[in-house]
């Protein structure tokens, strides 16, 4: 059995693979699938929005609207400041839909079997570290922008840099906070990448191991992947909101003071 497994030549690569180049920019299989995901995500939401605008509802529009409303409610629940919540909602909700659809594209039939010059054409964008890192950077930078807006640049810097002579514990806490920001961002990127990549590998391995029975066994794993994709998209969405909410929360003099920034209201208005 182990010998048979060893004989199987699975094509697994951590990095997405270049299909062709345009003006020196490598177009990878993940980018191609990502473009498809982008078209689907934008198409679905634009279709739903146009139907809503015309007041023509159907079950699909109702489903999209229901999901959107649920996400919006989550935004308002996590970020009590309504103005900030409304500003951050487009980013967080786009992350949810885009990650969800791209994650779900990993279960498309043809994964690892449709090849172009020996390279699989289909690869989920969520299984490309460039993408996960890109949205993690966007999330962390957005959180910092709102932190500066709500706490001022100096107030935000004070979260990380404090006078070690006057406040040695606070200074250490600031360093931890800085390390925390980096680790939050990288964890955000690596969590999604790890799950999506592992999901794809799992599907390929199951398909190879089950051979002719794969058409019976794979649907269960595909359903599992759909569920994991939903969870991962929601986790990314929720963490985006939580990090933003944490960034605009001022830490007062007291260690237990985690009250929202007093300037937040005035800055928001």
């Amino acid at each position, binding site marked *: 059995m*182990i010998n048979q*497994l*060893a004989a*199987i*030549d*699975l*094509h*697994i*690569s*951590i*990095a*997405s693979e270049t299909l062709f180049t345009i003006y*020196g*920019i*490598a177009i*990878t299989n993940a*980018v191609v699938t*990502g473009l498809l995901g*982008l078209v689907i*995500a*934008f198409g679905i*939401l*634009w279709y*739903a*929005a*146009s139907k*809503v*605008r015309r007041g023509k509802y159907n079950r699909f529009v109702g489903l*999209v*609207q229901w999901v*959107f*409303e649920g996400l*919006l409610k989550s935004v308002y629940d996590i970020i009590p400041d309504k103005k900030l919540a*409304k500003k951050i*909602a*487009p*980013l967080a*909700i*786009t992350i949810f839909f*885009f990650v969800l659809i791209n994650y779900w594209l990993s279960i498309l039939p043809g994964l690892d079997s449709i090849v172009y010059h020996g390279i699989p054409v289909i690869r989920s964008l969520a299984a*490309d*570290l*460039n*993408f996960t*890192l*890109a*949205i993690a*950077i*966007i999330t962390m930078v957005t959180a910092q922008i709102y932190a500066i807006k709500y706490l001022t640049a100096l107030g935000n810097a004070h979260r990380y840099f404090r006078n070690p002579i006057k406040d040695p514990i606070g200074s250490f806490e600031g360093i931890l906070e800085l390390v925390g920001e980096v680790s939050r961002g990288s964890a955000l990127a690596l969590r999604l990448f790890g799950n999506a990549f592992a999901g794809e590998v799992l599907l390929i391995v199951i398909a190879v191991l089950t051979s002719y029975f794969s058409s019976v066994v794979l649907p269960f794993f595909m359903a599992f992947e759909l569920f994991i994709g939903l969870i991962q998209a929601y986790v990314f969405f929720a963490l985006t909101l939580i990090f933003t909410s944490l960034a605009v929360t001022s830490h007062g003099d007291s260690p237990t003071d985690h009250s929202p920034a007093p300037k937040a209201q005035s800055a928001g208005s």
Partner: protein
Amino acid sequence: MVPIISNFATSTPDQGGLFAALGIDWKMLILQIVAFLLLVWLMGKFVYPWLMKSVDERQAGIEAAIKAANEAKATALHTEAQVEKLLAKARLDASDIVATAKLESAAALTASEEKARKRSDQIIADAQAEINKEVIAAKSALHNETIDLIALATEKVVGKTISAKLDNELITDTLKAIK
């Protein structure tokens, strides 16, 4: 399993460090950041406003419905209280009316009884007076008739028609004879 490990091994940092092994391409990273921000902008411009508007409208509708329901509930409670109040007042008024009616009917009964009694007394008195009159008339008629009968009888006895003159003479003769 060896080929799998070999595949992974081909992506190890020997071709350009850890980032290259993980597939991180800075140009692609920037491109994807820009593309995603563009998508967020497009969504924020052309998609979300309509969906948010519909959510807000629905929320407003729900809030209005809740408000209307609360108002209706308050109105119902108020109306119920008013109805209860009116019913209590009506009951009070009804009992007052019943009591007044009872008093009035008792008074009317008493008055009608008194009136009837007076009327019956009057009728009795009138009947008594009529009877008395008739008795007197009858007596008078009987008296006259008796006198007439006496006169007739006397005529038969005397053999003369009794007249006032003869009568006086008889009376005078009788009186003389007695003397």
